[in-house]
């Protein structure tokens, strides 16, 4: 069942550029330029792109806080801007750089307030809050005013606030930005379990590609307002020919240059004693066996394709 659907969605902003002492020129800048997207119920989608690519703008249009300049978008069958208040009951949103909590109130009171605002049945609210308290370790700061929380604590509070009403779609805009390793792990573990539950649709924008690797089965990459990739991470690796690599350390350099079946020699280091092979059709074991025929192998390691390299290539090419 399709939960989010965008057709030729676009947003242009007017920017004033100074053109002299009194003159200003107004220009249209396309932040989102004809995005087509269908996301089904229960999918976890990573929506990534370089700074200024249009990620947050897309999310704002999908949540109804920004009016599209063109195209159409529906979320849970509703038109976001027109039906924003009805939609708000069915979605949860976390903007990593903004807070939806009440600055002066303790987290516990913010959550109680949200229960009334979203009119959540008491038992549902209590059960969900209990689960969040356990998973996100909220108890130690539940009675602290939001203004006194650390970024990691606040973000865990934000995530809880976004989920207490059982949203059908969760929009996360850089939820791990600025968090330390422990907080990131807590947030990721929580989202992994949420994704595993199966029916909450999650749309995640982030610059932290570890979030994507850990959480998202599907990856949508946007640049200059346009979708430049929509598919799995594996499909992206295949598209950019990124391969697993085998690094072999030898006692002595091989007597003659090695030519292997199913792999290519990508790099030679340490005076020929460290060789890096990229796998084409063969396996890591094939490489080791073939190298061992020519030289004494001291150590081996296998490197998985690096998502950052692939994404960097993609950003440069678009």
């Amino acid at each position, binding site marked *: 069942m399709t939960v989010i659907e965008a057709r030729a969605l676009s947003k242009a*902003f007017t920017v004033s550029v100074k053109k002299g002492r009194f003159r200003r020129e107004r220009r249209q800048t396309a932040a989102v330029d004809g995005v087509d997207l269908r996301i089904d*119920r229960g999918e976890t989608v990573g929506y990534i792109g370089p*700074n200024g690519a249009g990620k*947050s703008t897309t999310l*704002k249009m999908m*949540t*109804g*806080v*920004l*009016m599209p300049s063109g195209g159409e978008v529906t979320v849970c069958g509703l038109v976001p*801007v027109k039906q*924003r*208040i*009805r939609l*708000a*009951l*069915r979605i949860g*949103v976390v*903007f990593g*750089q*903004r*807070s*939806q909590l*009440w600055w*002066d*109130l303790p987290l516990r*009171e913010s959550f109680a*307030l949200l229960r*009334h*605002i*979203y*009119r*959540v*049945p008491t038992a*549902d609210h209590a*059960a*969900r809050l209990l*689960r969040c308290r356990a998973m996100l370790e909220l108890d130690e700061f539940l009675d602290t*005013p939001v203004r006194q929380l650390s970024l990691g604590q606040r973000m865990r509070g934000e995530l809880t606030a976004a*989920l207490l*009403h*059982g*949203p*059908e*779609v969760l929009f996360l805009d850089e939820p791990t930005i600025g968090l330390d390793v422990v907080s990131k792990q807590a947030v990721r573990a929580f989202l992994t*379990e*949420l994704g*595993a*539950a*199966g*029916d*909450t*649709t999650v749309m995640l924008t982030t610059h932290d590609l570890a979030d994507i690797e850990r959480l998202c089965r599907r990856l949508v990459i946007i640049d200059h307002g346009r979708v430049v990739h929509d598919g799995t991470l594996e499909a992206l690796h295949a598209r950019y020919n990124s391969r697993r690599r085998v690094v072999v350390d030898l006692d002595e350099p091989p007597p003659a240059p090695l030519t292997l079946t199913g792999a290519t020699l990508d790099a030679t280091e340490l005076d020929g004693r460290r060789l890096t092979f990229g796998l084409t059709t063969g396996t890591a074991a094939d490489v080791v066996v073939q190298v061992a025929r020519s030289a004494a192998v001291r150590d081996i390691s296998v490197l998985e394709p690096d998502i950052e390299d692939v994404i960097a290539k993609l950003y440069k090419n678009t």
Partner: protein
Amino acid sequence: MGLFNATARTMPQQKLVGQITTFWVIAASGFRRYSTYRQATVAGTFTNTVFGFLRCYLFLAVAGGAVAGGYTPGQLVTYVWVAQGLLAVVLLWGTPELADRIRTGEVTADLLRPVHPVTSMLAADLGRAWHAVLTRCVPPVLAGLIFFHPYLPARWHTVPLFALSVLFAIVITFCCRFLVNAIAYWLLDVRGPLMLWTLGAGVLSGLLFPLRFLPDAVLLPLWLLTPMPSLFQAPLDVLVERDATPVQFGIVGLQACWLVVMLLLCRLVQRRAERHLVIQGG
């Protein structure tokens, strides 16, 4: 984790009951928010009381023991001290919180809640006002009672009518502040409009001096064409019983008209703003 399965189930309440409950709870949160700043409350109350003495002596000196602008000295004392008490309740000069939220993009959170932003902000403001009634209003009024000879209402309906008039004044002032702050949707920086409002509101609302001191040629258009006298002059005139009973009711009736107009204007401006909105800062 099954707890988080997408349900978005809401309480099986009637729509109106649910809306009233939500409004009430947001108002309570407004009260709670302001109750966290106790030292600021004490400092503000003290300042209002000190200024009450200054203003009261000034008005009594101007009146010189006679009737001025239709007010007896006792009515002027009541006018000044109750105005001092209402200063934080009606709140002409609050912090430009909404403008700041628009400028920083934090207003997004307000738009993402399933309550109309104007309704939500109004509820929170009523909670704030109720907190101010209990903390900021009582001490200056008591000071007036103890140290001066204020006029006390003689008609039975005056006090409830005054309470209603104050409620209307709070809502209309909220609307005025909302509209001034909402200029930030278009200009981002509202310091200019805010300065105009700060100056104009004090003078034209009847806070700094009773508007009845002004000539009728100025007073009548001000009463009929602007909401400004509804902010302070109206509740204070009702309380000091300056006019006959029908005029008292007429004043509150006029406030009610302005209340409806201003609330509609706020919703209209908010709707326009949302279509124009650019969320700042990514």
